[in-house]
């Protein structure tokens, strides 16, 4: 494995140590280690079946790892539930964008906010606090919707949104949790170029003002190259390259991973 030229500091925000998982006979992630610095933008690329989404499932706690350790802000998160991971400020978006079709767009967003007294069943007994919170949440949600151009759908069921719009909603929703780190799973695929530009602006703004760390899975390498400070390349469940964006173009391993290696001796 080629070690990165990116500097490693003592306290990374996310530290993944030699994690593996297998389902049945398949091992989508095999001994992956890397760490992510605070307020950076890193992309993970790799061909289909490289284990990228499986890796996200492990980090976000949706699936449990078989071996290894994952630390977030210095605390282990590999043995806690997905919702607890999210509560600590590490949220994700979904490949193909999961929206709750039978909630309105704004409800999808409002649901994401942490610490809502209305979430707690007993919050029902304190209607004024709940109301106040929900009003401010709604304002915030509307702001976010405006940012991504979805405000006109605010009160429609999310089920009516197009694939691209769903991705925007998914991302906005993740941001509503006020995270310190976001895992983005192919957020740009199927989104039209002007909106991609818009999204990138939003992300840049968030990084600057909110100090949010991003980890991205993306197929559109052009976008990846433009926005990433660091690129991790995965293939067959392992990291095969890790470094500055430009370095991977010349990496024979990476090209092989994408186009397939030539037959030995061929």
């Amino acid at each position, binding site marked *: 494995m080629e070690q990165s030229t990116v500097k490693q500091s003592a306290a990374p925000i996310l530290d993944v140590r030699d994690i593996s998982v297998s389902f049945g006979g398949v091992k989508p992630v095999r001994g992956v280690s890397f760490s992510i610095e605070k307020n950076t933008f890193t992309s993970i690329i790799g061909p289909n079946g490289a284990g990228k989404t499986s890796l996200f499932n492990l980090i976000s706690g949706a699936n449990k790892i078989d071996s290894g350790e994952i630390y977030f802000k210095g605390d282990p998160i590999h043995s806690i539930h997905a*919702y607890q991971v999210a509560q600590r400020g590490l949220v994700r978006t979904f490949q193909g964008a999961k929206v709750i079709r039978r909630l309105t767009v704004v409800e999808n967003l409002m649901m994401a906010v942490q610490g809502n007294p209305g*979430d707690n069943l007993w919050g029902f007994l304190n209607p004024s606090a709940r109301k106040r919170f929900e009003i401010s949440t709604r304002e915030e949600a509307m702001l976010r919707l405006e940012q991504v151009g979805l405000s006109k759908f605010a009160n429609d069921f999310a089920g009516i949104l197009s694939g691209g719009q769903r991705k925007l909603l998914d991302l906005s929703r993740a941001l509503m949790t006020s995270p310190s780190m976001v895992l983005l799973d192919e957020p740009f695929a199927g989104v039209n170029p002007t909106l991609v530009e818009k999204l990138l602006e939003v992300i840049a703004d968030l990084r600057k003002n909110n100090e949010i760390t991003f980890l991205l899975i993306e197929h559109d390498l052009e976008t990846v190259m433009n926005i990433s400070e660091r690129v991790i390349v995965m293939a067959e469940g392992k990291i095969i390259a890790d470094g500055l964006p430009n370095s991977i173009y010349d990496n024979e391993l990476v090209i092989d991973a994408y186009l397939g290696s030539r037959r030995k001796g061929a």
Partner: protein
Amino acid sequence: MEAFIQPGFWVFVLTMAGIYGIFALGLQIQYGVAGVMNFGHVGMMAISGYTIAVLVIKYEWSFWWAALAGVSAAALGGALLGLATLRLSGDYFAIASIAFAEITRYLILNADGVTGGTQGTLAIPNPKGFGGYTDQVDVILYWIMDRLYPIFGDETSRDMAMLSVVWPFLFLFIWISSRLQKTSWATVLRATREDDDVPASLGKNVFRFRLQALVIGSAFGGIAGVFWAVQFMLLAPEDFLRIVTFYGWMILILAGATKVKGLAIAAIFFGFLYGATRFLDFWPISELSSPERAYLRIFLIGLVLVLLMVKRPQGLFGKREEMVLE
């Protein structure tokens, strides 16, 4: 026809509709909001009713504390059921919940030293020698009857007093429930109905939310049990067969699973269907013997259920996609 228009029976039917309405309200929260298919709901009613009867008769508790204990016991039953089996997927949970209700019924049936067993609550061993538990409520019911008498005269009945108690409570509970369903708590639950991963990824403990819904729904089942116990003044294990749960479901489906406000009308509709079929004795049905008419009645209820699900699965007030997207 003359018998049909007498109000007395319909007062009873409406009272029962109200009780079934409260019962179905529990299912509404569980399924309509949280997507949990509880087919053992009748068990909660049994737990609550029997808790009251046993505490009042055997331990001479005040009815009010006993009623509180009954509802709490039903909620606890829901929690127990949920903790044990709520992690199962939909149909598995449904089957497990039926089993839960049946176990409850068999335990009641066989623990005759406590519950009166097969003999019903009248047989609960008690210091006074008589197994009634409604004395304290009856004081109130009779007070209401006294107030109603000047208006309705001889038509005044205990059922009428019950009716005037049950329905305000049903409306109150519908109101509370509809308020509850406007909270973000319910929003999260509605999300879990479609997808567990999304709310979990947003920091929501899906299991806790779902368990809460099950417990609240079970508490409503318990409240229905309180009214049931007061209405019948006597409980027997055969009252809590699994078909009762299906009646609750029928009301819920009639209303449209997500439409809490439709419940009241659906309950009346169901009560009418159930009561009116007892009057099927006009020609040509009158040519049938009374057992044959009794068969016809059950058949018709089954037929309505099937037709409803085939022709209008969204119920009277619901949207079709609610049922389609299970």
